[in-house]
């Protein structure tokens, strides 16, 4: 390994850009190359299922950082450049063009791939999934066609992306059917009470929700999808189909190079991989928790915070990411904000108005707060984030008491400033 060789970052998305930025903040003076295989400069994905889907605009509006920003930080960006292999013994990386690049240290920020539907008919026209700016443009156009032709948009999967697409499609005037295999929405990450609130919300906006739907086949004519068949024999008419059944961490390069992977590049909380000169951050990782479990998160915060850890690790420093994970989702006029990990909860206490809805679900495990989902309850979210980050917990009784101020716990712990009401 040549210590003077550049640090190379593979993947120019949310995590890749942040690794570059943080490396400069950590005082790295050497060459820095950010390599991405997309055509567009690094951009934000969250709007792709929200605002952008309703009204695609200029690419620059989605940009994570402007070109000036990368220049100021001396981050060389190579777009439209696909990395095909890593040779760890030689410390080189191979590009699709055949070119080889030396590295001193390497960062993976390759993101995730939309999971494809492993079913007959999945390759028909107008069967779409959503990961990139181009996907979003194609889905936006397909939804508009459906609205004009009065053909339904069928969304497969009642998770965040599927539901955001459903909400956006309703805004564009299309009929929408959501097919969910399980008995409720977002069931892997939220309590039934939250799922039910979203069920009411989508139904009130005219979305047809079908639960327990086992999709068996997509049927088409002239190469274009026309219906989605489910195991119960029903056929759901479709002008287009949006597949939102989750993602697969893209660990292919790392796995081929022999790094420890398990549906994601395995990293510790400092973003270090099994190779001391390689770090990884963002959707491509599976983070080993203190209790040995592997945590796979797909969120902006995770990408940004792991990237900061990764940059520090490349400079030989430890900057563990242990803050409570958070996430947001916009559907219609509801802002859902989630913080913490609700997995393993044994009690849920709500606060606020369930019907409006403007409430939060507080998840407890053995009477300790582990996560909070807030629907249009920003104050709960922000306060809970602080509480969880500092290992503080209200009791379930305190949460149930509408008069009790969560902020008082922060004040007691001297975590609230005088006017931070």
């Amino acid at each position: 390994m040549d210590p003077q060789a550049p640090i190379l970052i593979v993947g120019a998305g949310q995590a890749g850009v942040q690794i570059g930025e943080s490396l400069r903040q950590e005082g790295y003076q050497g060459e820095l190359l950010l390599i991405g295989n997309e055509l567009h400069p690094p951009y934000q994905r969250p709007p792709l299922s929200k605002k952008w889907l309703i009204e695609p605009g200029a690419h620059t509006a989605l940009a994570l950082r402007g070109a000036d920003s990368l220049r100021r930080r001396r981050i060389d960006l190579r777009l439209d450049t696909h990395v095909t292999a890593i040779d760890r013994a030689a410390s080189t990386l191979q590009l699709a063009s055949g070119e080889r690049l030396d590295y001193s240290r390497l960062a993976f920020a390759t993101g995730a791939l939309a999971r494809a539907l492993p079913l007959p008919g999945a390759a028909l026209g107008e069967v779409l999934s959503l990961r990139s700016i181009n996907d979003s443009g194609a889905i936006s156009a397909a939804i508009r066609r459906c609205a004009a032709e009065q053909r339904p948009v069928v969304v497969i999967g009642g998770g965040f992306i599927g539901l955001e697409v459903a909400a956006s499609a309703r805004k564009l005037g299309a009929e929408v059917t959501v097919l969910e295999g399980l008995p409720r929405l977002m069931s892997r990450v939220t309590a039934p009470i939250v799922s039910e609130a979203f069920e009411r919300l989508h139904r009130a906006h005219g979305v047809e929700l079908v639960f327990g739907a086992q999709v068996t086949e997509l049927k088409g004519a002239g190469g274009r999808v026309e219906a989605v068949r489910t195991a119960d024999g029903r056929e759901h008419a479709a002008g287009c189909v949006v597949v939102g059944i989750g993602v697969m961490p893209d660990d292919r390069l790392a796995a081929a190079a022999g790094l420890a992977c398990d549906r994601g590049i395995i990293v510790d909380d400092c973003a270090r991989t099994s190779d001391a000169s390689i770090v990884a951050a963002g959707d491509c990782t599976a983070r080993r928790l203190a209790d040995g479990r592997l945590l796979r998160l797909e969120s902006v915060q995770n990408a940004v915070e792991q990237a900061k850890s990764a940059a520090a690790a490349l400079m030989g420093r430890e900057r563990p990411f242990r803050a409570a994970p958070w996430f947001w989702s916009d559907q219609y006029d509801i802002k859902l904000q989630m913080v913490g990990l609700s997995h393993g909860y044994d009690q849920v206490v709500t606060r606020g108005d369930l019907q409006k809805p403007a409430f939060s679900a507080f998840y407890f495990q053995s009477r300790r707060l582990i996560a909070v989902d807030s629907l249009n309850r920003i104050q709960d979210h922000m306060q809970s984030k602080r509480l969880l980050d500092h290992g503080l917990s209200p009791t379930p009784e305190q949460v149930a008491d509408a008069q009790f101020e969560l902020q008082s716990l922060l004040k007691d712990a001297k975590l609230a400033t005088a006017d931070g009401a």
Partner: protein
Amino acid sequence: MPQVTYIEPDGRVRTLEVDAGSSVMRAAVDAGIDGIEAQCGGNCACATCHCYVQDPWLDKLPPPSDDEALMLSNVAAERRPNSRLSCQLVVEPALDGLTVELPDRQS
């Protein structure tokens, strides 16, 4: 074009020409100003674009929306009377000269 001045966490001062209609956050991340993360991209969902508005500009800005005020309630750095979320500050000709100071941490 209105000018906005940013005081970065290490004290460096940079002045940018900003398109009217753009946000104080957007202009900063495009130019590579240190001290703004903007994780949610201006959605008023992350509070990692926190800034302190310098005199005399605070009173010239429209007051924070309810959402912004609630997000400000638990920002990572110290909350001050002149705390605002820069993604919610839309630059207009009347704000020419606006100066914001950026906190040492956003998350």
